């Protein structure tokens, strides 16, 4: 694993590197078609979020009482909600919220978790013991319960929501990364760096962290799906982003529940969007893990 990573890092020619990436991508698509489909959906979702102002047919916040609870039609492809707002437009803009919160929480959670995991493995001894027991305490709380508690304490604006979702992810990532970092710690180049008198920070960040990138990327993609689901759950419970912001979880609550029998499209399409996004991230994450883990590598 580390040899592969090092191989990529030492490749000098940028053209050769691009070619190699293209080969890797094509190989990934050929060997892991499900993962490739997942990656395709993720890329599509990112494009939709970025292009939302141009591709959205309506203003997602504009109330139109004349079109309240309208069924899917040529005017409103996915129907309207209880305020006459276009469901498709709100799903398109909702992808921005999902990705901002999802990427924010997953990236920060995985990165902080990785740094803690590597540091814990590097120092070992009492520091490792204290960090691991603290991580054990945090991991003993179910993801949603810890996030709920954090939101209740911090309040429910967007930065706090990301922070609340980040904290439960840190110990999960730290434990996985630590186990990989324990073997990296024993590598001769780490001993060499120590012998040269490099500072701990430099050894951890420049020599150990790059060599645990594979589990880091796997955790990151796995957390993305979880973070999107968590954001939707918190919004559904009224503790995430607030109306009138377009967010998938938010679209499932309130009137969507009350009118579930008469206007099922209000809950159906945002629910599908959440399922598809989580499924895509999970497919991609699983395939990435298979591709990067030498023990699971085939062919």
């Amino acid at each position, binding site marked *: 694993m580390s040899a592969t990573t090092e191989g990529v890092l030492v490749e000098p020619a940028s053209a050769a590197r691009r070619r190699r990436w293209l080969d890797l991508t094509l190989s990934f698509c050929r060997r892991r078609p499900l993962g490739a489909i997942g990656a395709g959906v993720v890329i599509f979702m990112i494009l939709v979020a970025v292009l939302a102002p141009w591709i959205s047919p309506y203003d997602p916040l504009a109330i139109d009482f004349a079109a*309240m609870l309208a069924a899917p039609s040529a005017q409103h492809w996915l129907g309207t909600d209880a305020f006459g707002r276009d469901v498709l437009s709100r799903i398109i803009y909702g992808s921005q919220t999902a990705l901002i919160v999802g990427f924010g929480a997953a990236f920060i959670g995985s990165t902080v978790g990785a740094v803690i995991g590597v540091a814990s493995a590097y120092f070992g001894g009492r520091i490792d013991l204290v960090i691991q027991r603290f991580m054990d305490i945090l991991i003993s709380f179910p993801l949603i319960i810890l996030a709920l508690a954090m939101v209740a304490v911090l309040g429910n604006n967007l930065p706090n929501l990301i922070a609340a979702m980040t904290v439960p992810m840190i110990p999960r990532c730290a434990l996985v990364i630590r186990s990989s970092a324990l073997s990296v710690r024993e590598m001769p180049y780490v001993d060499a760096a120590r012998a040269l008198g490099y500072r701990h920070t430099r050894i951890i960040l420049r020599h150990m962290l790059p060599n645990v990138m594979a589990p880091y990327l796997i955790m990151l993609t796995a957390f993305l799906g979880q973070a999107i689901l968590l954001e939707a759950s918190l919004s559904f419970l009224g503790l995430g982003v607030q109306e009138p912001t377009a967010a998938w979880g938010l679209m499932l*609550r*309130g009137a969507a529940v009350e*009118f579930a029998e008469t*206007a099922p499209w209000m809950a159906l399409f945002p629910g599908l969007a959440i399922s598809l996004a989580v499924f895509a991230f999970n497919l991609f994450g699983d395939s990435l893990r298979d591709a990067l883990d030498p023990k699971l590598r085939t062919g």
Partner: protein
Amino acid sequence: MNRRTLFFAAMLSAAACLFAPAGVRADEKPRSGGELIFPVPSEPPSYDAHREQTFGVIHPVAPHYNGLLRFDPTDPTGTKPVADLAESWTVSEDGLTYTFKLRQGVKFHDGNEMTSKDVKASYDKIIFPPAGVVSDRKGQYAVVKAVEAPDPYTVVFQLKWPAVSFLASLASPWNFIYRADILAKDPHWYETHINGTGPFIFVEHVKGSHWVGKKNPNYWDKGKPYLDGYRALFIKSSSAQVAAIRGERAHIQFRGFSPAERDTLKAALGDKITVAESPWDCLLLVAPNHTKKPFDDKRVRRALTLALDRYAGSKALSKIAIVKEVAGVQVPGTPYATPPEELEKLAGYGKDINAARAEAKKLLKEAGVEDLSFTFSNRGVPMPYEPVAVWLIDQWRQIGVNVKQQVVEAAAYYATLKKGDFEVAMDFQCGYTVEPDLDLYKFTSRSKNPSNYGFYEDKVLDDLYEKQSKAKSVEERKKFVRQFEKRLLDEEAHYLMTLQWHRIIPHSSKVRGWQVTPSHYLNQMLDTVWLADGPTQ
């Protein structure tokens, strides 16, 4: 069931509410027997209504008690005080002495006779509570100088100043009459025990499950109650309450359902469901914090109220939320309510919304806040806070005001309001009867009234409140109520009214003799209620 059928069902039910005679029909003879079953969405914190504020006490506990007066159970406005334990009363010419003659032979459930001593002890507990005893409505009776019991069947209230609303205050559904001897021994006894003179005797309370009452065979109002008993089921979930009624395992839920829930029940059960509707004496208000800039500027506050298209909002929101009527400071249709044509003259109540919004933009420009943006603090209760907030934010967006909603968890919400830790917030008022003294008090100056969350001082408003309260005739009082309303909502725009709540009670058509009113605290004694063809199985 398609949407057109549902819409038709909703229209039918609305028509039924408007034109069906309320309460007991003249051609129907009340039938005795059966057990009334009703879900209650909240549970009583204690059994003592003198100290509690929630309908969770009134709904299961009120059938065990009487008051001195009550509101006429057949009056849809819920504003006419009539005799309950009092048989008759007189008021002195100066309006300072109210003398009540009590019914004789009324027995508590433990067999003791009710006398003036009990009425005095109960009102002394409410108005002059001893140390350590909580009385939630003590402030409402500041006008009372003394309560006297000159003989066993006469009670006299001496007032400090004449108060036209005094009879309504005595008809409060919270003022249960307790036994004096018990209160003398332990003023907290009624927090955990029941012993009244009411139409039903307490059987059991299983916390988290149910409350049961059975017919009082010695009830003083001969022939009543009609029911053999009642069973209150404590069910918090709205969908579970609907399911109970839909499955015909409960007859009625007295607080109210949403329009969607009404339509679902009507569509599922057809004629087996009767829908009773009424304006609700509850209102969501918008409180601009006068201590925060630019909300100290009345031009900004006026702009915010001018932006609201209340009539279009009423038409649309009434389909998805428990709000409906466009109202001023009084529930429409009640004695002191401003007629619609006069209401239209107030800022934000005109029918020409484009002109109103143009004026709003002009006012914001004059105030130097054309790009106004603020955080709107809302209470973490979905219905109707959430839909009303979405509507408000959309309306303000149309005059270029950018608003972010911050939802504060329900338990922490009033702490936020009390601290004044907000720019603009949703506030709430709900009363047991439509009475200007009770309804307008909230809007007097902060120094007089801690529940003023606009944090303003307005001596003119305080003076108008006093004048209406001491007015000698209905017409004179109406004049002062209108002046108060104009200053509050138009000239100063201290508060913004959203839409009056709308009470929707879809109930089993078997339930008769119950009249919906603007308050979910009224008509809960159940003495007049009967079941058309026996109990639900």
